[in-house]
């Protein structure tokens, strides 16, 4: 509202892309040509138009897909269609990595140069590609393909846009070839996913077939849920003591119960599939290989919490996941398993997919709500909590993909029975994303309470029989542990006792040859790039932290023993290293300020991996002088 649209106008192609999503504009006030006979005396507007604010991000994706970038003219047109002030829309479009506001070639590769891929030579790959392709190559944070080696997301803009992940990127030439074609790349290997419970259908059932899913026990849990009804479902989930698998480990039963009890309506279910924690790929494997399970679990959640509408927010870097889920939704709807009167019951439930735009912070639940609502994906202050004031200001249950899928077995087995697996504090199994220097990277489902050593052994141990230097648990926001921690039980209480975190299930292994200083510098860069900028401690702190770790600190010119950090590969000395240098102190103070004063978990954990590395990893301790 209060649209001050100046200058640029959209091209025909840009308009067409937006109109394909939103339908043709009804009047000149909404972007059709000025027709004074029709428009001169009345206009609809207000809520009717601004009520579609949540179409902002889909509209940007529509233009990005069709044109390859979003011009000022396209932005103005979207703003006119949706009655959004251009300055606000500009704030939104510039928030996301995957949306471009400068002209770009139609075919673009987003190449991962994040921590796992770096271990596979991503830095050199990126440099080679940049020198060959220039603007067609963009470096990307983790693409969630850590089990396959170096990866790239290739997007082709046009009337029939395509988005594919190429993984592994076998060579520079292979990627250049991939940019020339809209065909789906061949040779993407099936995931290595080993597990007895929630992974049991993977590589067994046919992922894209509802029939096959049903043959392997699918939709039995929904049937059970319909019999049980809301209160009994929640009782089972509570009895199972299921903890959230996204990283925060909140009791799922309590969350559902809180939403179910809220008087305000409507209620919403949000599935957080914005899996962006570097090193994490479990939800991608679930969505690509067992999409119906995700849909079914969301439906169960809808019944339990009195919600009739669900959103699944899938990160923009996961085109295959999006396609798999979209296909599953269509089939489920056709089979009466979504929509009004699901499976012959009185329940109604619909699911809408929302594609992220490339922003780690949108995995934070309230940032995710804002992103769906068409705002910048900035976290909200809590309270109010999502159960009271979530998506569109309504009671909302938001769960991670893996958390939801667990609910199916809980209903089928009964909560108490299900809770027999795992430890007393951490029931059930967990998916662990083994990557880095292990012989067989992949997804492993492990009963909670097994040791870290057991997990690494499942993945074939350290590759090439080399010595272990360190393990990163929980991703960039997680903790480094040294080889002395291998007997740590993989449970929330076990991790807590070891002053570590399991986070989103990342187990990234670094052998003796890894350059951990390079990894830490990349992690610092990651947080610098992904900070939403809303609160000062994080916005400034992550930049200063990155400067220090990249050797560009305020006193980086200082040389001499104990005088500070000299950049990657030059012996970073951190707070844990015992060095009394000014940079070590500064780094510790930055970390403390971010931990104490940031609004959300991003700022509060932006120093976690770095500090733990200096504290726990012998090779870095050994750097002390």
């Amino acid at each position, binding site marked *: 509202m209060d649209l001050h649209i100046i200058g640029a106008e959209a091209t025909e192609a840009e308009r067409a892309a937006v109109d394909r999503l939103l339908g043709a504009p009804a009047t000149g006030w909404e972007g059709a040509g000025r027709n*004074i006979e029709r428009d001169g*005396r009345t206009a609809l507007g*207000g809520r*009717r138009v601004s009520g579609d604010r949540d179409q902002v991000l889909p509209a940007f994706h529509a233009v990005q897909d069709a044109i390859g970038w979003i011009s000022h003219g396209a932005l103005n047109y979207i703003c006119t269609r949706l009655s959004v002030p251009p300055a606000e829309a500009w704030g939104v479009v510039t928030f996301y990595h995957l949306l471009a506001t400068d002209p770009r070639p139609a075919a673009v590769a987003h190449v991962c140069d994040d921590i796992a891929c770096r271990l596979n030579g991503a830095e050199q790959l990126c440099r080679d590609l940049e020198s060959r392709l220039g603007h067609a190559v963009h470096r990307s944070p983790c693409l969630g393909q850590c089990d396959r080696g170096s990866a790239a997301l290739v997007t082709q803009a046009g009337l029939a846009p395509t988005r594919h992940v190429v993984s592994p990127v076998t060579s520079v030439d292979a990627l250049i070839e991939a940019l020339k074609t809209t065909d789906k790349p061949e040779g993407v290997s099936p995931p290595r996913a080993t597990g007895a419970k929630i992974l049991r259908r993977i590589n067994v059932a046919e992922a894209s077939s509802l029939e096959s899913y049903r043959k392997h026990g699918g939709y039995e849990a929904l049937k059970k849920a319909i019999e049980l009804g809301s209160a009994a479902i929640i009782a089972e989930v509570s009895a199972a003591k299921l903890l959230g698998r996204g990283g925060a480990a909140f009791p799922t039963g309590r969350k559902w119960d809180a939403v179910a009890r809220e008087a305000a309506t409507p209620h919403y279910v949000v599935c957080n599939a914005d899996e962006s924690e570097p090193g994490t790929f479990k939800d991608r494997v679930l969505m690509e290989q067992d999409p119906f399970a995700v849909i079914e679990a969301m439906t169960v959640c809808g019944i339990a919490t009195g919600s009739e509408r669900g959103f699944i927010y899938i990160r923009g870097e996961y085109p295959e996941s999006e396609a798999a889920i979209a296909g599953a939704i269509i089939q489920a709807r056709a089979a009466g398993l979504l929509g009004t009167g699901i499976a012959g019951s009185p329940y109604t439930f619909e699911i809408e997919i929302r594609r992220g735009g490339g922003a780690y912070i949108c995995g934070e639940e309230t940032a995710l709500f804002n992103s769906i609502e068409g705002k910048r994906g900035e976290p909200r202050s809590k309270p109010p909590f999502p159960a009271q004031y979530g998506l569109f200001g309504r009671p909302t249950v938001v769960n991670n993909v893996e958390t939801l899928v667990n609910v199916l077995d809980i209903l089928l087995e009964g909560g108490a029975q299900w809770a027999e697996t795992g430890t007393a504090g951490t029931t059930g199994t967990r998916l662990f994303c083994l990557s880095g220097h292990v012989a067989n990277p992949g997804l492993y489902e492990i009963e909670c309470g097994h040791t870290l050593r057991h997990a690494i052994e499942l993945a074939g141990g350290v590759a090439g029989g080399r010595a272990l230097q360190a393990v990163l648990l929980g991703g960039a926001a997680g903790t480094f542990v040294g080889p002395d921690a291998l007997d740590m039980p993989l449970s929330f209480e076990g991790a807590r006792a070891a002053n570590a975190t399991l986070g989103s299930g990342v187990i990234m292994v670094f052998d003796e040859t890894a350059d951990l200083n390079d990894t830490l510098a990349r992690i610092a860069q990651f947080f610098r790039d992904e900070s939403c900028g809303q609160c000062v401690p994080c916005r400034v702190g992550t930049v200063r932290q990155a400067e220090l770790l990249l050797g560009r600190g305020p006193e980086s010119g200082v040389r001499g023993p104990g005088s500070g950090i000299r950049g990657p590969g030059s012996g970073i000395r951190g707070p844990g290293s015992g060095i009394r240098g000014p940079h070590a102190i500064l780094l510790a103070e930055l970390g403390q300020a971010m931990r104490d004063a940031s609004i959300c978990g991003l700022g509060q954990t932006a120093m976690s991996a770095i500090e733990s590395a200096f504290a726990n990893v012998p090779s870095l301790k050994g750097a002390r002088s």
Partner: protein
Amino acid sequence: MGGGTSSYQEIEETDCILLWGSNARETHPIFFHHLLAGLKRGAKLYAIDPRRTASAQWADVWAGLDVGTDIALSNTMAREIIASGLANREFIEHATTGFDAYRELVEPWTLERGEAETRVPAPVIRDMAHTFAAAKRAIICWTLGITEHHTAVHNVLSLINLALLTGHVGRWGSGLNPLRGQNNVQGGGDMGALPDRLPGFQHVENDEARAKFDAFYGVPVPPKKGWHLSDMFNAMERGDLRVLYVIGENPVQSEADQHRATRLLEGLELLVVQDIFLTETAQRADVVFPAAAGAFESDGTFTNSERRVQRVRKTLHPPGEAREDLAIICDLARKLGHDWAPDPEAMWNEVRQLSPVHTGMSYARLEQHSGLQWPCYDDQHPGELFLHGRLWERPVRGPRAPFSLVRHELPLDQLNAEFPLRLTTGRRLAEYNTGVQTGAYASPTRRGETIDLSPEDARHLGLTEGQSARITSRRGAVVAPVHIDQALRPGLTFMTFHFPDDVATNMLTNDATDPLVGTAEFKATAIRIEPGSGVRDPGPGSRDPGSAFASAPSGPRTPDPGSRP
């Protein structure tokens, strides 16, 4: 009594809002935030305005009527409400008078006739009528788009009719609200700065009320009403008014037909101006009293549009020789033989003794309650959130509310071949009236005065954005750059009067007034537009090239930079 009947909070909790002749988004931005809270809660907003303003962009429906057809529109709505059985018969019978005559009056106003006269599509009028009438709670808000017409009072009465017809008055969330242009316009009226009223809206021709004032002050109050502003100018013309004391007004630039206003003010025997800036009017004064700024250099009270009296406290000493208004007035009184103490609280307690609606508002209570809404009759009275609740009491307390028989009349300044375009005037977000209070501040949205045209008219006239155009009315001509505005339809043009030093818009406007209250018809001027010379029109202000005031400097008004904090 004159005031908005509702509290701000009610606009947040109502179900339907008719925003009539008001671009509150720009001109009452604080009030509009309350309105937005209402929209967020689910209220439906109708914007009735010839232009599709920023406010209309927020509205569920914009109704773009012809300038000066407000009564035609309200009468059509009334007819539709009655014909559809949506009138609140119980309320009408219980609390109003004159309904039968009113029904007869509006009977001919079918949707078709309403559309023909107002040009608002019949389905839009119908929707507006039905939604307003059927809403559980509904509020009508208006500003100068209703009152700056020669039919000002009738326009307001026609809106009151709609509220009476539907029972949307005197209840929480239902009411009638003129939005005030300044923080204390309401307070000025409350204190008797009206030609026919004593403080507390007591009529000056009411012997009983006047006797109270006579006794209190020991001097008789003249027993007849005074002049309103337009009367004053007419009296100047006749030579009956020869001395004028202007406090905080800039009539040289704010009055319609600026030539005449300037001539008359310059012809006075004595012109005294009290202001915080040396305005165009002050420059013509015989005596200027430099005054303190009310907002932060003096103590007292303000009263806002919801009738809430609030304390205002002095935080800065006025600069230089500037003094508080009260001190200046008391000094003047002393010279005239009355020893008044310039003590704001004592003065306020005087008001409380004389104005029953303010009696319960001691400074201590105002402080304790963060302001109180009149009427507030005694120390225990909580103040009234909304007015006219009495109409719902059984039996009605006091007189019943009359329907008013008001007829549609077109603006006086009629369009013809010579003056084919309608100019309407208004205000923008960053500016306030003639710019005295805002011109000194930088604003990123300030673009100076323009003549705003529809794209169609601009094309027809061969004018492009920024090109200079000469605008002529039956009274004068000015030159202004063209701004093409999609919010306008062909035949409708728009100007502000924020930059009178550059473009004296009120050279064009019609000083024909509503005979009942004297408000001038700023909103409806007939003009023609021709490509301009590109040279600034010297304007009538320079008739006397020897005058020091002949040619005001262009650009934003800048007070002496050293004189204000």
